[in-house]
């Protein structure tokens, strides 16, 4: 192997084909499995899109490498009344085109993000008014106290009012408008990097912004950044191994060893915030896709526990995820909930599971269909396959319906909710339990949007009550108590079968140093090329 590599290196040197960077020009090439949909910061609330935009645009606040909130375009803020937050804006900040940043831009951005066509309306949920106090002071007024107001503002990027208006981009991109929005392929932020050129899905070139307000503290040494989306896992790995790119993610779990054993490449692993879990239809009186007729076996907690206990997550972690996952007893990452340690997964026990099934009246098991995406989460299809095999051991015959995410989501999500048993993943974008409790576990309710992604229709009145308490409680300790109680209820009722948090896996060449954030946002500002 060593020999091959040496030969390869020699060949590469002779051919000089692979971007050998000279000493002063530090070009950084990287790849992700897809591309940002748009450069319009309000067009899609999706991790990678926001992550790429986050190098160009900035919010009032930002997250540091440890996901702690720190000031960004706002120098400081205070809660002057329970429903009024006052932000002092940073002075002397200039957009890439040289325009000054001031309160008007914040007001403009606040208006734009709440317009039709914006996918980030939720960032200002509960805000009833945004007021300009002076050129560098802005007040946000909420209806009720919202203690978590700024939590998601790290990805609410501030746009330039003048630039947007001059280019007809006052409104967020609207597909139905029938024409392209200027902000889709052009950007004018305040961040450390500027767009030099962009071909959607092909190549995006970024260069550092010399006039960045925080340039004194910049952590990178780059002169050019080339981003290429590479969809095929194998090709992405090959490109990193051959040195055509300096960094890429995600690393397919099976290729971890390969990259780690190669002297030129390394893998950065870390916990991710997304929790993968199994949901069961506990609402309908008869399952849509099962051999059991006339009743719904999942309404029986014993059946749910049998399923829970049939699944050996540790084994999945070891064999399917190759160690790149953290088995979870909760529907949220332990990084985001203080008392996570108190919760333990039920011990896998096939014998007990069989007994539980027999007690519930299914000694010979039954047949059911498991809905599973095959291109959404890390090894999603393989996890489902493993689950199918494990359930087969307690006599439950599972038909696996693994589909691409487009068809999968259309089938299982509201309004259809055409599923009896499904695998889903969830990242709370606010880094907070309330998000999980409200969206995933709360009783589905069209009006309020509660339980929007609770496809199995799990419902518990006390849990919903606790969810509301959590939202408005400002005392952290009390809040955590409510959360603890709610999770205990869910755990006892086996309302969901949490599986694990998948791990981040970024691959890089050895001469690159960078920072990996647990929210899977890749910040170019921390990239150094040696």
């Amino acid at each position, binding site marked *: 192997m060593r020999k091959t590599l040496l030969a390869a290196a020699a060949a590469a040197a002779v051919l000089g084909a692979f971007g050998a960077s000279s000493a002063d020009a530090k070009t950084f090439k990287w790849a992700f499995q897809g591309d940002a949909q748009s450069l319009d910061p309000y067009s899609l609330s999706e991790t990678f899109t926001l992550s790429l935009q986050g190098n160009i645009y900035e919010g009032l606040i930002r997250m540091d490498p440890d996901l702690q909130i720190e000031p960004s375009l706002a120098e400081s803020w205070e809660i002057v009344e329970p429903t009024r937050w006052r932000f002092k804006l940073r002075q002397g900040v200039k957009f890439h085109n040289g325009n000054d940043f001031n309160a008007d831009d914040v007001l403009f951005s606040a208006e734009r993000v709440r317009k039709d066509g914006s996918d980030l309306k939720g960032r200002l949920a509960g805000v009833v008014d945004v007021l300009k106090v002076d050129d560098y002071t802005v007040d946000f007024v909420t209806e009720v106290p919202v203690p978590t107001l700024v939590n998601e503002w790290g990805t609410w990027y501030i746009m330039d009012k003048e630039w947007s208006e001059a280019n007809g981009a006052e409104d967020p991109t609207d597909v139905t408008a029938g024409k392209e929005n200027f902000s889709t392929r052009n950007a004018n932020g305040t961040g450390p990097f500027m767009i030099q050129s962009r071909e959607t899905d092909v190549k995006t070139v970024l260069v550092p912004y010399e006039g960045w307000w925080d340039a004194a503290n910049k952590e990178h040494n780059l002169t050019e950044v080339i981003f290429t989306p590479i969809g095929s*896992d*194998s090709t992405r*790995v*090959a490109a990193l*191994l051959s040195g055509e790119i300096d960094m890429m993610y995600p690393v*397919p779990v*099976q*290729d*971890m*060893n*390969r990259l780690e054993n190669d002297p030129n490449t390394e893998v950065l692993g870390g916990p991710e915030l997304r929790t993968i879990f199994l949901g069961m239809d506990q609402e309908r009186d008869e399952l849509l*896709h099962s051999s059991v007729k006339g009743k719904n076996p999942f309404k029986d907690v014993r059946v749910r526990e049998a399923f829970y206990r049939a699944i*050996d997550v540790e*084994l*999945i972690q*070891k*064999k*399917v995820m190759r160690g790149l996952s953290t088995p979870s007893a909760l529907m949220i990452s332990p990084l985001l909930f203080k008392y996570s340690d108190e919760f333990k997964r039920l011990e896998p026990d096939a014998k007990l599971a069989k007994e539980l099934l027999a007690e519930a009246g299914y000694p010979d098991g039954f047949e059911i*269909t498991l809905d599973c995406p*095959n*291109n959404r989460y890390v090894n999603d*299809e*393989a996890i489902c*396959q*493993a689950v*199918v*095999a494990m359930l*087969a*051991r307690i006599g439950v015959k*599972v*038909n*696996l*319906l*693994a589909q*691409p995410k487009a*068809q999968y989501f259309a*089938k299982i999500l509201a309004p259809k909710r055409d599923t009896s048993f499904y695998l889903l993943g969830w990242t709370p974008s606010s880094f907070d339990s309330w998000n999980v409790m409200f969206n995933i576990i709360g009783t589905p309710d069209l009006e309020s949007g509660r339980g929007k992604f609770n496809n199995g229709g799990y419902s518990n009145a006390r849990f919903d009550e606790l969810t509301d308490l959590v939202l408005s409680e400002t005392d952290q300790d009390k809040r955590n108590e409510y959360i603890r109680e709610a999770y205990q209820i869910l755990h006892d009722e086996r309302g969901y079968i949490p599986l694990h948090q998948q791990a981040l896996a970024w691959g890089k060449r050895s001469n690159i140093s960078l920072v990996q954030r647990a929210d899977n946002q890749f910040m170019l500002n921390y990239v150094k090329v040696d």
Partner: protein
Amino acid sequence: MADTNMTSGSGFMDGMRRFFDGDIWYSFTRSPVTMVAAAITFLYFFMAAFGPLVAPHDPFDLASITLLDASLPPAWMEYGDPRFLLGTDIQGRDVLSAIIYGSRVSLLIGFASVILSLILGVGLGLISGFVGGAIDAFIMRVAEIQLSFPSILIALLINGVLRGVIELQNQADLAYAVLILSIGLSNWVQYARTVRGSTMVERNKEYVQAAHVIGIRPVLIMWRHILPNVLGPVLVIATIQLALAIIAEATLSFLGVGLPPTEPSLGTLIRVGNDYLFSGEWWITIFPGAALAILVLAVNLLGDWLRDALNPKLR
């Protein structure tokens, strides 16, 4: 030659003797490559027919599969397990058994779709060539449109429509139907064109005209007189198409519209194993890949030989 002196006992024996004495059999015995190809094809058919008896494990029986056995290398390698001659995949499935069952699935889909397109193509070709006129023009127009579209795209389209029309319940059963229909429906044109051509030639021959005159029904004429004459070329096309259908199934699987990984065909095995090529677990994809390549190669070689043997002009 010795066998010309054989005396025949029965009609069957006579038929057999004529076959073995015939040119096809002769050209077969003279081509070692063809003989090897035939032996390999036979082996696959045997595996397909008696897979459950031959395979060391049942890869479809999920209860017997355990992740504990996952990703074991072939038996002769370090960490190999003698129970799994060619190693296991990431679900702990025996690769050898998966290949045996997978060949069964691939051949089934290949055969079913070839038969479908054969029936469709021969039928339409006969009608087109025999009836002629507007019907012929219409059928050939449709054929042209379809021929101008690559089969894989047509298969994708049909696949999409079928998946929408048929209620998705059991992925495996459905996937079989969808694959067979989409591959079958996208390949009928070649048969139709060949049969149409031969039919038009045969139709004008005297015996057919005579049959027509004495009032034999057209269907019967086609069945008795025309069909036997076009079977040669059809057989050749069918052989080549079988190979293509097996590959098409693999490609559709790669595009994510194939069989579920719980009941994999050879194509699905390769698609799934594909991701493990760089990680060192090459056996998950290389063995099924080799199995597929050998099968398709053998069938193609048989097709080649058959074409030459059945074409008297080339003899």
